[in-house]
């Protein structure tokens, strides 16, 4: 008994690196960012305390609110097809008679591990209006006569950014949905089949309700990730009239391109509030329906 109490001290030692690391490299910078957001600092001279001035500027900053809107639009335009596509394909791949399941799963998942920056560059080249292959294909099959200037149109730009995100992430959701489907016991299906239920009824009445928790989990986690879109959209550009500039792109441009670190810090906290707000809303909205 005595030795056990002594040994339990090692628990603290073993978890200590996490807490030291988090306090020094995670939390300290977060608190320091908050301090900077209350100052005026250009990166060279010492920060000067200015109170809430940066936050006053933030709530009157139409560019910031535009990035919130653009991020939300791009997120919704990518998450809805993402979930529908992943769900449909997961249901198909869950069928017993389909062959090559591993192959299809691997192909659908592969885009998810490719470097987002690289994908951004790749798609910006493919959608280049004069030299990109997409316009070449469309003109070759006669769908359009003249090349479409995609990135000159705010909605095409948003569709492309959302499309790239959807293309990259649907495979990830697919794997999660398949895991969820495999968690549903076979007996449930078999009982329904014995009772004479058809496939569409089984899907609507049995599978979808049982899969609900998994779908909610993906949806809620996608809020946190989707509102922080950065790498791929940065490579695809701000879009006409900044229509595809995301919140994190604005943070990056403010702090590390215009070197306005103190206002950038306020933007970072603004983004934090927005992300928390929408996470709370989605959590509440999905909970009340339960």
């Amino acid at each position: 008994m005595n030795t056990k109490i002594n040994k339990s001290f090692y628990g603290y030692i073993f978890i200590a690196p996490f807490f030291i690391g988090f306090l020094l490299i995670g939390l300290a910078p977060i608190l320091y960012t908050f301090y900077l957001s209350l100052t005026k600092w250009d990166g060279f001279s010492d920060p000067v305390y200015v109170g809430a001035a940066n936050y006053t500027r933030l709530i009157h900053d139409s560019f910031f609110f535009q990035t919130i809107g653009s991020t939300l639009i791009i997120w919704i335009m990518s998450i809805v097809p993402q979930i529908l596509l992943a769900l449909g394909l997961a249901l198909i791949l869950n069928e017993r008679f389909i062959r090559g399941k591993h192959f299809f799963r691997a192909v659908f998942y592969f885009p998810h591990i490719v470097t987002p920056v690289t994908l951004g560059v790749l798609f910006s080249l493919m959608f280049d209006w004069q030299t990109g292959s997409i316009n070449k294909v469309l003109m070759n099959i006669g769908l359009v006569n003249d090349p479409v200037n995609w990135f000159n149109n705010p909605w095409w730009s948003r569709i492309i950014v959302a499309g790239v995100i959807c293309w990259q992430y649907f495979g990830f959701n697919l794997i999660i949905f398949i895991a969820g489907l495999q968690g549903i016991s076979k007996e449930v299906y078999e009982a329904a089949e014995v009772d004479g239920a058809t496939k569409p009824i089984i899907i609507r009445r049995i599978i979808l309700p049982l899969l609900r928790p998994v779908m909610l989990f993906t949806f809620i986690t996608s809020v946190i990730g989707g509102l922080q879109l950065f790498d791929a959209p940065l490579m695809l550009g701000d879009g006409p009239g900044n229509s595809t500039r995301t919140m994190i792109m604005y943070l990056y441009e403010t702090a590390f391109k215009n070197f306005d670190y103190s206002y950038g810090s306020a933007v970072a906290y603004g983004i934090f509030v927005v992300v928390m707000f929408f996470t709370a809303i989605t959590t509440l909205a999905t909970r009340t329906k339960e």
Partner: protein
Amino acid sequence: MRSGYTHTKALLYLLLAAVSFVCLVPFYSMLITSTHANSEIASKLLLWPGTELANNYNRLVGSVNIWRGFANTVFISVTATILNVYFAALAGFGFSKYRFRYRNFLFLFVLGTMMIPGQLGIIGFYKVMSMLQLTDTYWPLLLQSLYNAFGIFLMRQFADASIPDEIIESGRIDGCGEWRIFHRIVLPLMGPAIATLAIFSFIGKWNDFLTPMIILFDNDKQTLPVMIASVKSAFSSDFGAQYVGIAISVIPLLVFFALMSKQIISGVAAGAVKG
């Protein structure tokens, strides 16, 4: 009835094939286009390999040290993955097998840190690192691997389920110290969880973009994703060279995935079910 069934089946396969096509065709286009001259890329639709790969490649490596970036990224990803896995296993083991005070509260704290958006402290991170004179070194990128809440969660789950307390007790009876128990008995038993975490940690670090971009200044220290981004602006009208750069970034991941796809996919599924 029978033919209706066959039709449905054919339709489903067609759908799967179509989506597979959409997933793969950008990579095919990337490979094909990287082998053509800029004049051809600009003027026509390319479906078959050309002969200009060497020229495109030479123009790229003539001004961007892409293999240096590749080596830098390998070094950072491997080192960070080792640190990440080791400290996650250590903390996961600590949370799983030692009954210390505030254990549950501290574990909840660890999980809570996962809710913090990654970019919240990025400006402060840059400032703190420059005060410590660690900018333009790899230290900031590696130190981040000391704390990985998801890894600790994964390791604790695994230790709770698969490492019996009796093994640790018998190690103590044999006179092993606690560190020795961890290194000699627990770490080898954690193999499957270590493999899963290592794969995700490696991919995450390999693709990391914002932190290296703001922390590193010297072009020769830069990572591959940042180099790809700079290739885009430096070679704005040289499409052939850009496509070669993209291919150099994608092909290693393709090979890695071809070798590991089963482990990667089952790791995603396991992580999701537990999450």
